[in-house]
């Protein structure tokens, strides 16, 4: 009698995930139904190692989402994440990469601007790239179906550093500030409006034995959405550090985690939890208010974690790395929901949080979820209150999910009737101070959203 003890995976809520790998493939995974197992539904691009993906950025919008990927040959491509159409491609730093010495200067950081610097309803994409040698470049590219007379601003590029190797970069939620760090480069913060450095970290003092650990940052991110002053960085000497630029230049909190370099750091929506992944495949979450380890995610993860993504609404995180698996975890219970083998070394994972499982059946919400809505309308008010408290349970997750579906469907309904109306709906958002924060679960946002809904209805 063979004794098998396969791990029971409970399955994921409906979601859509895009992964990129070293062979330059973009794979799309979808999980449908209430508890579905994610499956590869599409693979884009021919396998070619010279076009391996180094960085990816995803503009997670309801209308016109956009995926940007930076390839090994210096090309930045823009894809439509819904069907994989290439919308534009551009080469970064053509003038510099002509001589052979700069050939090995790969792109390490890529950020696609979601709200700022986008005129004419995203027919123009703004993106920030950063290369290994410290060349940052803020440039614009016109997408394929853009009008011909669209004028693009000249790209602005600057040098972050003269020596060292940049390994990580991040842009905050308001998209005004960017941070960079790397091997031999302390974390530094730049104001993107005028491309000036506003803050640099200072390395911690030598320890009691007089041993100084060399600077080597491997991952960094902004801690919370509203605040660009708090930065979390992971180092190769297996430390997680919290910097507060309003307080001091040295780390406020510095905690050590196991014995392999921190390779990925991702922030949670709540503004204090972070998820870290290490070079030997350990995934853990930290509470950065206290610097305490909340817990590890255990699930036979055996290869270095390259990227972690957090779902914008559901408490789900996805991690991927050199063991060629994409794993989905429950962020709260730290349980493995599902694991998918994708055959290649994966470099990036992004989650499309506006995906609802019923999309394929048409624009209308299918029957069962309608029934669900009916059954849950009575408790909706209470639910709203609970959400504003910030506590989540599985039931509420489902609730918010269905709500998201409703929102999306509404927008889709709006779309065909009049594009202009929908655009005018979007624009006030874009001009607002915290445009993407509408997805947040805090009480203000919730109320604001409700108001917006009402205004939409009145329109």
């Amino acid at each position, binding site marked *: 009698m*063979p*004794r*098998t*003890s*396969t*791990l029971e995976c409970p399955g994921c809520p409906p979601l859509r995930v895009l992964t990129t790998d*070293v*062979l330059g*493939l973009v794979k799309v995974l979808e999980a449908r139904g209430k508890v579905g197992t994610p499956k590869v539904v599409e693979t884009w691009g021919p*396998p*070619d*190692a010279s076009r391996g993906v180094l960085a990816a950025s995803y503009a997670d919008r309801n209308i016109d989402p956009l995926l940007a990927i930076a390839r090994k040959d210096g090309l930045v491509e823009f894809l439509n994440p819904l069907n994989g159409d290439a919308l534009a491609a551009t080469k970064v730093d053509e003038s510099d990469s002509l001589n052979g010495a700069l050939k090995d200067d790969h792109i390490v950081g890529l950020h696609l601007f979601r709200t700022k610097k986008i005129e004419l309803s995203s027919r123009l994409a703004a993106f920030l790239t950063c290369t290994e040698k410290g060349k940052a470049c803020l440039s614009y590219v016109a997408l394929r179906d853009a009008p011909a007379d669209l004028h693009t601003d000249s790209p602005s590029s600057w040098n972050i550093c003269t020596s060292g190797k940049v390994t990580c970069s991040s842009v905050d939620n308001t998209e005004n500030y960017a941070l960079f760090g790397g091997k031999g480069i302390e974390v530094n913060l730049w104001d993107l409006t005028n491309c000036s450095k506003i803050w640099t970290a200072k390395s911690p003092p030598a320890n009691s034995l007089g041993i100084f650990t060399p600077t*080597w940052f*491997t991952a960094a991110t902004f801690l919370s959405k509203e605040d660009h002053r708090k930065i979390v960085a992971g180092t*190769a*000497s297996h430390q997680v550090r919290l910097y507060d630029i309003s307080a001091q230049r040295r780390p406020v909190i510095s905690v050590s985690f196991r014995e*392999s*370099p921190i*390779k990925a750091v991702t922030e949670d929506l709540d503004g204090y939890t972070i998820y870290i992944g290490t*070079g*030997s*495949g350990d995934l853990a979450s930290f509470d950065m208010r206290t610097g305490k380890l909340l817990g590890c995610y*255990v699930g*036979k993860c*055996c*290869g*270095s974690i390259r990227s972690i993504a957090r779902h914008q609404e559901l408490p789900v995180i996805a991690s991927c790395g*050199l*063991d*060629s698996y994409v794993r989905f975890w429950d962020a709260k219970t730290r349980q493995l929901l599902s694991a998918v*083998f994708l*055959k*290649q*070394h994966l470099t990036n994972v992004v989650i499309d949080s506006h995906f609802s499982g019923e999309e394929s059946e048409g624009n209308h919400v299918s029957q069962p979820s309608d029934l669900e809505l009916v059954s849950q309308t009575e408790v909706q008010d209470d639910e709203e209150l609970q959400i504003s408290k910030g506590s989540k349970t599985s039931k509420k997750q489902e609730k918010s999910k269905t709500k998201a579906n409703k929102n999306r469907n509404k927008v889709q309904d709006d779309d065909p009737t009049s594009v202009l109306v929908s655009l005018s709906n979007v624009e006030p958002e874009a001009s607002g101070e915290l445009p993407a924060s509408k997805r947040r679960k805090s009480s203000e946002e919730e109320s604001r959203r409700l108001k917006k809904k009402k205004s939409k209805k009145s329109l």
Partner: protein
Amino acid sequence: MGTGKRKKSDGREVEAASAAAERGGGGGEGVKEKKRRTLPSMIKNKEKRSAVHAELKREKRIEKRKKAKAQEAALQRAIELGEEPPLKKVPRTIENTREPDETVCKPDDEELFAGNDADEFCEVLKQDVSPKILITTCRFNSTRGPAFIEELLSVIPNAHYYKRGTYELKKIIEYAKNKDFTSIIVVHTNRREPDALLIINLPDGPTAHFKLSNVVLRKDIKNHGRPTSHMPELVLNNFTTRLGHRIGRMVQSLFPHDPNFRGRRVVTFHNQRDFIFFRHHRYIFETKEKKVDPKDKAAKGAKEKNASQQKVIARLQECGPRFTMKLISLQHGTFDTKGGEFEWVHKPEMDTSRRRFFL
């Protein structure tokens, strides 16, 4: 008091059981009795216990012999009647009941081939570059280590031994890169016994760390042969999963891709339950006159006349060394313990089943 009573009753039961055994080993009644029988381990009197145990053992042996005889008879009968012989039962092992694994390579996987074309070993395996191996040791090294290395040098063509000295491994890697080596093998010894093998593919990884056990050197193998300097043939067995495939390719890249079949020399890496067995043989094909029984001679004398009853057999001679490797980790890039990324590390939480294998 209670215990004493129990003992007594136990003894009585045992008596009954042994009596039943004496009555006869076979028969339905015996089977029924067997179920009621107390285990010998429950008997506390040693003499009685050993007696019952011996009896049990004898019974089992008889049973087994009977079964084998019945099977043999069935086979004979099938042959006589010209029927299909009864199917031979395949024993269930933990290998053929292996847990299904999604990472096992499929032969028609386009992505796998694309990945192969792009990996670090493809230059060597496409014969653009001929492999050149640097063999070195850990810092403290004595007796069995050098002997083992000497034999490795005879196994792997174009391998060069360099004294370790006090150089750091990272410096050695730099040096080897400049000298166009394609791989480095580091033999680690502990208590004068080789116990780990580090294989680093150059110029940019990966690095595999193997545990080494059961090292038997050539002189300790009975009737060992002496290998020639011909290019060996390579046999890689059972590298099925994606990780195993990668390890297999790594091993493959240590050897030149053009075996000299005249040398009749074969190097085997056989994977079984994640242990990789290394063997080194010489083989020979011999044509031998088939021994014909005198009875058969009479039966098919005509057949014997026209064709000389010849049979080709392959004979093997082992020429050492002999060892077993087990993968501990596979690191992305060259050796770097501090800042390195692992493609695969063995973790205790992965050992949830005896039937899960990674290679």
